């Protein structure tokens, strides 16, 4: 089984590691780097739990090979909070609005929404619903996630003002 040495930046830190050429990015992040916050729910690109940002764009870590991330920047859920003490506004709003129950889909929701709010800082509820239409949640029924996102968007706009 052939492997290749790759270098990439994850959550601002440069990493170099061996990766089997057939290994998907999700397994590389979780196994080789120990970043288990990225969850694998289906490994066929449907559920969205493994969503991470690749050069700032949301992708499914189960549908990208680790070697494809060579020389690129990856942000996972572990990279969202500004510090060990503080939360990203989306994380805070998910807590405040009961936007999670079991928490398994949450990392993919947060990364998806982080990209979305950068592109669309003042969304309508309908736009939020479209933004997470590719992420499955089996616990919440989604309403609380929409409410959390609207609150986070407000907080981020106020912080930027």
């Amino acid at each position, binding site marked *: 089984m052939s492997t290749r040495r790759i270098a990439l930046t994850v959550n601002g830190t440069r990493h170099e590691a061996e990766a089997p050429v057939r290994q998907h990015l999700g397994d590389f992040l979780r196994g080789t780097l120990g970043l288990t916050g990225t*969850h694998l*729910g289906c490994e066929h690109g449907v*559920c969205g739990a493994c969503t991470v940002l690749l050069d700032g764009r949301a992708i499914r870590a189960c549908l990208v090979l680790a070697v494809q991330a060579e020389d690129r920047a990856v942000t996972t*859920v572990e990279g969202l909070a500004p510090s060990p003490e503080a939360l990203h506004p989306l994380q805070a709003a998910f*807590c405040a609005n009961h936007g999670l129950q079991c*928490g398994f889909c949450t990392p993919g929701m947060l990364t998806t929404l982080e990209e979305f709010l950068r592109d669309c800082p003042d969304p309508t509820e309908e736009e939020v619903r479209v933004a997470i239409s590719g992420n499955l949640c089996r*616990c919440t029924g989604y309403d609380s996630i929409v409410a959390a996102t609207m609150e986070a968007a407000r907080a981020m706009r106020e912080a930027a003002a």
Partner: protein
Amino acid sequence: MDGLSPRPGEDARTLAAGPGRVVGRAVTRIEDLPLVRGEGLFAADVNFPRQLHMRVVRAEIAHGRIVSVDAEAARAMPGVVAVWTAADVADIPLIPFRATKVRGLEPYCQPVLARDRVRYVGEPVAVVLADDAYRAEDAAETVMVELEELPVVLDAAAPPGEFAPGHDTEPTVVRKEYGDIDAAFRSAHAVVELELSVGRHSGVPLETRGAIARYDAAHDVLELHGTAKKQHWNRDEIARLLGRPPQGVHLFEGHVGGGFGVRGELYPEDLLVCAAALRLRRPIKWIEDRREHLVATNHSRQQSHRIRAAVDAEGRLLGIDDVFFHDQGAYVRTHGARVADLAAGMLPGPYRLPAYRVAGHFRLTNKTPAATYRAPGRYETTFVRERLMDAIAARLEIDPVEIRRRNLVATAEMPHARPLDALGTDVVLDSGDYEGLLDKALARFGWDAMHKELAARRAAGECVGAGLAFFVEKSGLGPSDGVRVTVDATGAVEVVSGAASVGQGVETALAQICAEALGVDYSSIRVVRGRTDRIEFGNGAHASRVTVMSGSATWQASLAVREMALECAAQLLQLSPAELTISEGVVTRADGLAGPSLTLAEIARGRGPNSPAMRGQTPGLTAERWFWSDHMAYPYGVHLAQIRIDAGTGGVTVERYLVANDIGRAINPMLVEGQIVGGLAQGLGGALLEEFRYDPSGQPLSTTLADYLIPTIAEMPEVDVLIAEDAPSPLNPLGVKGAGEGGTNGAGACIASAVDDALRRPGAITSLPLLPAHLRALLVEAP
């Protein structure tokens, strides 16, 4: 006082009505922080040095005799340490069941690896143990399983086939009966008869299953990680099946990515990783992939009913006679015949029913084994019963709301005992104001005004309708659960419970109850659950039992600690306990006057094992209490829906939805609402999207999340939730009833009713799920 022995009369202290300091309030969860930061510990996140990865080789046909299993090529693959077939695990008994009174099911239990036959696609036949998950999967693909095909049984209502020589595919028939059913039909003004069915669907949590076993030789303890739901029972059974004392086996629960009934039962893989860890002396990790999950983890729901009702001229029920066929799949799993039994016991629901007879044919088929899924036996029978009520209304030309009013059990009739049992307890509806809640729900939904609006839209050519379904849930299954509450020398509070968490907010709910009773901040309380090494006994998290059972035990244990703290403080402050109170962890004068105070930390230190004052007593500021219950508490409610059918595609859009649910007492209304809305999403999935389909040879067709469709946000309507607390349960000190399943229970029935209404064809809908192609056909044939 020693913290272990309850004082006489202390269990009479009930939670006062109305919102408390923290109970009854929508406070945020103490679980959330690690989960939003990506610091959770789900099964796949558990790793141990030197671990091996297990891959399961599964049957690829639905029924066949095993001719041979050739694993030679696999054993020679790089990284492979062992390959096991049935012969290697012949010493492990069949997986037992825990939850049935029905006898004679033992021959139908599943072996950890298939022995002479395979009976469903996905059945474990062999396992590969290798140093890497990818390599284990490579090797598993080279294991050659030679099978001789046998005829398949796929329809539970078809004549039984052969399970094994001497055993057919009907292990038992669940029968219940009371009243004079024949007389009811003889005297009936009308008899309404229906054939109805519910499709095969299940919990499908977003996290697949996982099991990581490790033998700690230094302490002679077998550990299993990635567990859920029933740790203590599973610990005892794993110990028994592998020939160890229970004290030498410990189960650990990390984060759980959704349970919904299916996770945390004892499955073949759990025993296989444990056996391998003991034999190979290396940690063994198994993580299910999604395709495996959809064929290996419990399915649920599939039943077909032939139901008849006898009614008088006013539409009052005189009797119900039901025959149903329960599709159990290939083996009897840990629940035994529980779902069929619950269906039979809970079918009458909220209605006064003088006579009842039911025969539930519990049938095996060559499909994935089935068991419980959120509102088991109730989702199915609420669909059947509410279809029946709609049919009676149509037959007698009585309004569907009115027909329900005439039959609902009245508040004055509570508690209402039925000569029936469910989950091994007598069905006694403990409390309720059914009609009152129906009125509230109709008013809140704007039922009458909506009908005018729908009529106008129909006149304009739209296919729109509305429906409702009343349901009764059950919760708080006993018999017991215990909680130990301890304040340590720093004043930190820990609640150790025998409950488990499946992601629903158990920790927050128990912390709120403890905080209310003890007088501390809920957000700093540590709640321990799902660990057999911290508490000797526990009955876990299922059947909407945690808030009722573990919540009540938490209340009692916390009050006992409070009393202990007040007595200690009273001695030191030279006041009586009644003159003191506890707030934010500090004991002060209850009258608010200035004076000396003591922190719980100081009191705990004073009760340390080396404190001279504690000589001859059990040390610690700690108490353990057990709560017992002989009967279940029965929450109830009503679902109301407004829907639109796309005439072109047959697709249903749910425009508006209300769930009204009386749960006695909401410990945290935000979490209750989350349970109801999330439960509804699953109920709507079963009504409109989700189905495990099979081809005529028994090949599963729903093996990806692109084929088995769970609701996305696009399918979710605007949902309104009415949480009622009109009828607190008299069976526990908190007045609570479970909130986990009411959102799911009535959804199939309600959507069917609304679709009937949109089609303007009462009784058109006889099965779930309502897939677009079927509705399109109904629209085309509509007059």
